[in-house]
Each structure stands twice: as C-alpha cells, then as structure tokens.
C-alpha cells in the first residue's frame, strides 16, 4: 500500500515538473508597500494605498491579460504561460494607485514599467525615495491640507524590480 502511494506521488511530481517546464514562461511577483514612510513618527495614517496592477503582452499597453488590485502590505504571484491568464510573454506592467474615498488621490500613477523576458521577476511598489537638494531633505509623500485633511499634493511612486533568474535558453 505504501509503495503504491509513493509511486502515485512520484508520478504526480513528475507530471507537475513536466507541465511547469513545458508551459511556464515567466513568474512575476508583485508586492505593494506604498505608503508615506516619512509620516510623522512613522505613522502612515491614511497614506497606505491599494494599487491596481495590469500586465500586458506584445509590447503595447492596450488590453491587459491580467488585472489585480493589491491592498497595502499584500502581494501577488503570477505565472505566465499556457493555461494561465497571460499565455504569451508579459512585456509591460501599469500601476495605478487607488484614490482614498475620504482624502482623495494620494499618489500619482508612475510611468508604465517594461517587463523583460527573465523567468522570475520581483516588483516592489513603494513611495519614491527621499531626495536631498542643497542640504534639504525632500519627501515624495503626499501632502495634506491642514484645514480639511484632504490631499493637497499627491506623492510619487517608485516601482523597484529585481530579476532572480535569467532567461530560459
């Protein structure tokens, strides 16, 4: 009995392995950490933002093959290839921060992102890094109106990426 189960499991692993190597083109992981880390005392307040992420194929940014809303501090992992939402190689990604119902548009949408043909790619959506100019620290967080709590100036977004594995030869 034990031998039969072992054989079945081994076959299942073989089938999965064969299936993955035959059809998966890319694996894309996207994490959302979009908030104002310069918020007073590190408190993000109402700056923690959801984002709508869309993936595109064929080099254009017209009809997405995959769309997801990623809440703050969440992530998604997308497999590309036969049998998946995106069956052809993903070439681009758009990121649109979701406006807060109470405070308004917290972050302006960043430029579209180019996705290359590497097998595993990780994207991190966050607020643009602080910059220094003439000795002054500039935050790229949203700025709120002190009289009514609405967003006076939206913040800017950075989409960081790393490519863990190279293209399949």
């Amino acid at each position, binding site marked *: 009995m034990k031998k039969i189960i072992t054989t079945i499991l081994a076959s299942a692993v073989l089938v999965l392995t064969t299936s993955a190597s035959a059809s998966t083109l890319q694996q894309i992981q996207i994490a959302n950490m979009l908030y*104002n880390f310069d*918020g*007073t005392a590190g*408190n993000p307040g*109402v700056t923690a933002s959801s984002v709508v992420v869309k993936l595109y194929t064929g080099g254009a940014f017209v009809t997405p093959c995959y769309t997801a809303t990623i809440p703050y501090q969440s992530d998604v992992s997308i497999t590309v290839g036969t049998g998946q939402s995106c069956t052809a190689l993903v070439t681009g990604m758009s990121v649109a921060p979701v406006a807060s119902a*109470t405070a308004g548009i917290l972050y302006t949408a960043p430029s579209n992102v180019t996705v290359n043909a590497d097998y595993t790619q990780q994207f991190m959506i966050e607020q643009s890094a602080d910059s220094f100019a003439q000795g002054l620290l500039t935050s790229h967080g949203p700025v709120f109106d002190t009289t009514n*709590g*609405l967003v006076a100036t939206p913040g800017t977004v950075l989409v960081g990426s790393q490519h863990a594995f190279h293209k399949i030869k």
Partner: protein
Amino acid sequence: MKKKGAFIAVFSLLASINLSAATLQQFVIVNQLSNPNATNGVAGQTSTAVLINFYLSGGGAPCQSLTLNYNNSTTVSTGTGFSCTTAVTSITFTPVASAVGTTYAALSPFTPTVGKFITQISINEHSGSGNDPVFDTTNGLTVTPGTAAISTQ
C-alpha cells in the same frame, strides 16, 4: 376630493389628541459639524457624525441613543410610548472619530429647560478662531481636534 379632506381632518385630530395626551418634550436636532474655515470652503474630512445620548433625572443608562450623521436632522419625542417615557434632563453630544482620528472633542452635557415643549438644537463648530481641527501634512491624521458647540432655541 371631499373624502380626502375628511380623512386629513380625522388624521390631524388623532395626531393632536395623541400629542397632547402623551408627549412631554420634542427635540429637533441638526448636525452641521464641519470646519467652515477649511480651504475653499471644502469641508473634507471634518464633516463629523455625532453620537447623542438622552438621560432621565437620576442618571443611569441613557433612555435613547442615536448617531446623527453630518448634514442630517432628527426629531426625538419624550413621554408615554416613547423611548424616554419621562422628561429628559440631560443630553450628551460625542463627535464620532473617523479614519483620521478624533476630529472634534466631546461637548459638555446639555441641560434642557424644564417645561419647554420644543427645543431646537444645532451642532456646529465653535465660532471664532482656534476652533478648527488641524491635520498632519504628512499622513492626514488629526493633530489637534476642533471644538464643537451647540446652539439652542
């Protein structure tokens, strides 16, 4: 047409009989609690709901409790058949905190005038400077709650 007029007359009579027999007080309350001095007159996140509790003499638990949203009004009757069956002697107003925190501090309890049948209460931001809530520019949270006030007639 004649029938409709008769119906209204009977209904009015019933309503007035009911009112005179059972109602002790009526409170008409309007919530206009927001920052009138906000940029370009946009209230933003200062529009605040208020929790209102009604108490009978002797204290204890409230005989009626309701949440009044911004820009809304309500009428509360007291007496036989109502939630507060005897005269209300104290009303408290607590602004409801929002996602940005406590936008207005709680008010002192209000004592209605004994024997007055209808009392109109308006909840507003306290007039004069220094009573607006102040928000943090970096995260949108309330730094300093505003001061609310009620006006009655």
